[in-house]
């Protein structure tokens, strides 16, 4: 899909959004939250200002915190110079308000606004972000500062922790690079890194007390990069993946998040000191992808210790003795198509690239096994809008109890997930690696 030249459909969608905005302006209820898309000058460290687009002049955008089941109205004003859309990632909402043009949510033309009203569910750590396309310019969509947490409080869980901290991992100033292989394909590299909009060592540390149980809600808001992170001197008790609680929390020295994934993890603050939480990759952590945790009464330079073990697998967090339920098999084959050296590869789903991919047909309340067959040499964080699915098999090994809306399918790996088609409407399926999504890796799931 040409990224810069609006198609006829884009044009009509923009007209639709404008009309919708006017009528909503006349009749819509008072919004609970307002997001204004506009330029952001983000000083990630003294003297280094990243110029991007964000919500309400900041990046990450404001935390949207609501109760499960609550009707929420959000006004989005597009103060930018290009058509935009905000997507409510991980929420079970109708297609018309989900924030994906491909599903039928109208684009927001520059200077217009719209209000979106829906019931907040399911409970857990969700997020919102731009769902526009960037093309090769890398200044649209998830490359920008248009992202924020959307936390839905469960109605029946008070939470057994002393402090709750939201942490969003992000890279800035992207550019296309052969990554040192002059005959290789182009991928996205970045100049700067941050957590919660600040580079490691800049901004206030997170202050904690010995003996506290601190709940971290971590989001990988990257457009393209898989992250492995650790907290020096501590381990994580992983309680939820993509906001969905695990039946049995597990301890892990590292966390791994593909783009758009979230992890909730408890940390027992039992090792007083000044510690770094950040990327295990030295280059990126030293480049800013970290944040300091400082115990009360402790001073000195923050310390980094590599984790004792860097193994990460979804399998560690599920029930290996049972496989998620059966369903009609829907195969999805992911393949890479060579486009030339020093070019961006193209991607296909079942042999076709978006917008020519064949839609997946499902029936309301039907049970389906989506069989992800990744035949490429790259891992893909695949995302299904408006639904949650359960991992059923990883590389042939049965499992259950892990509910996700994004799952990383490893290179040359098969994975199966159970989907219960219980939210009718057009539903977008895509790789959340923005470069892949924009180069063919998208398809629609349609209810019959």
């Amino acid at each position, binding site marked *: 899909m040409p990224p810069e030249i609006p198609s006829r459909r884009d044009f009509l969608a923009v007209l639709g959004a404008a009309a919708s905005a006017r009528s909503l302006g006349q009749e819509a209820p008072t919004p609970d939250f307002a997001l204004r898309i506009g330029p952001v000058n983000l000083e990630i460290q003294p003297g280094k200002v990243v110029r991007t687009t964000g919500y309400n002049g900041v990046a990450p955008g404001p935390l949207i915190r609501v109760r499960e089941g609550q009707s929420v109205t959000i006004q989005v004003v597009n103060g930018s110079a290009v058509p935009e859309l905000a997507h409510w990632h991980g929420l079970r909402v109708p297609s018309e308000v989900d924030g994906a043009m491909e599903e039928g949510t109208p684009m927001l033309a520059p200077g217009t606004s719209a209000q979106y009203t829906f019931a907040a569910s399911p409970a857990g750590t969700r997020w919102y972000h731009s769902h526009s396309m960037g093309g090769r310019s890398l200044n649209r969509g998830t490359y920008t500062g248009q992202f924020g947490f959307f936390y839905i409080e469960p109605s029946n869980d008070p939470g057994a922790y002393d402090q709750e901290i939201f942490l969003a991992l992000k890279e800035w*100033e992207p*550019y*296309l*690079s*052969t*990554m*040192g*292989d*002059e*005959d*290789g394909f182009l991928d996205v*590299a970045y*100049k700067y890194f941050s957590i919660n909009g600040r580079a490691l060592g800049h901004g206030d540390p997170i202050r904690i007390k010995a003996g506290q149980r601190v709940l971290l809600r971590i989001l990988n808001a990257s457009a393209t990069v898989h992250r492995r992170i650790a907290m020096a001197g501590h381990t994580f008790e992983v309680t939820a993946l993509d906001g969905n609680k695990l039946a049995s929390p597990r301890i892990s020295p590292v966390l791994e998040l593909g783009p758009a994934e979230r992890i909730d993890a408890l940390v027992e603050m039992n090792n007083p000191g000044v510690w770094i939480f950040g990327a295990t990759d030295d280059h990126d952590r030293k480049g800013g992808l970290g944040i300091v945790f400082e115990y009360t009464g402790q001073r000195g330079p923050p310390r980094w210790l590599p984790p004792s073990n860097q193994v990460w697998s979804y399998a560690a967090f599920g029930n290996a003795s049972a496989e998620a339920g059966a369903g009609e098999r829907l195969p999805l084959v992911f393949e890479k198509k*060579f*486009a*030339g*050296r*020093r*070019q961006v590869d193209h991607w296909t789903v079942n042999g076709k690239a978006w917008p020519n991919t064949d839609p997946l047909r499902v029936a309301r309340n039907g049970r389906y096994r989506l069989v992800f067959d990744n035949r490429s040499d790259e891992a893909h964080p695949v995302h299904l809008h408006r639904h949650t699915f359960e991992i059923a098999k990883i590389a042939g090994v049965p499992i259950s109890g892990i509910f996700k809306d994004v799952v990383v399918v490893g290179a040359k790996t098969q994975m199966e997930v159970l989907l219960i088609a219980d939210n009718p409407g057009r539903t977008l399926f895509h790789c959340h690696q923005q470069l892949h999504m924009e180069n063919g890796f998208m398809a629609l799931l349609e209810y019959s």
Partner: protein
Amino acid sequence: MAAAPCGFLQAQGSYEIQVYGSDLVSPGATMFELHSNFTFEGSKTVVDGQYPTEHQLHETLEITHGFSNWFELGFYVFTSADARVGWQWVGDHLRPRVAVPESWKWPVGVSLSTEIGYQRAVYSPDTWTIEIRPIVDKTIGRLYLCFNPTVDRSFHGPSVSQGVTFSPNVKVGYDVTKAVNAGFEYYGALGPVTGFDPLQQQQQQIFAVTDLNVSPKWEFNFGVGVGMTGGTDHLLVKMIIGRRVTTK
């Protein structure tokens, strides 16, 4: 200008036959390349004290280290072997190179290489030379275009009086598959920039080449070249095998 085939002043002679792309070796990485060039048809007699080039095998070791995303430094050891004098050391060069970083997002790749060094007079009448090589390249789909409008200068030898000479190199390649790129490379040495040599005294070579891309760690280039003027060796084959080593 004496018709001195393959003197270093003319596009590094037939020791390193390569059109430079704009990409640098990654910071912290080191590239080891072996350039092997054999002249099937060249000069048959000693000219101006220079050994004949016919049936000479040139083996050049090139070691390049990347220091940053805009700077690398290369070092060359040139050698030559033939039945008459055996395997001989020819000379050494040093090659600092700067490039526009990818993060600047220029529409074309741009780099500037400077190569300075010494070679023995029996292999090149010009013993101390400098080469300044601007590099511009562009990929359009599967098509790769590269231009090196190189200028050279001799500091010691018969070509000193020529001043700055012009030696353009061009590469056109096409990705036939992910692993195979095929194309042509052109190497010219046209003479002084103030007035090119007569055509027959210029060096004009064209190579049919293939590059194999089988691994990010390895590079492979093979070509067969013909000289198109009297001042050029008439038939050469070249091969480059490179191994990239990273410490990370």
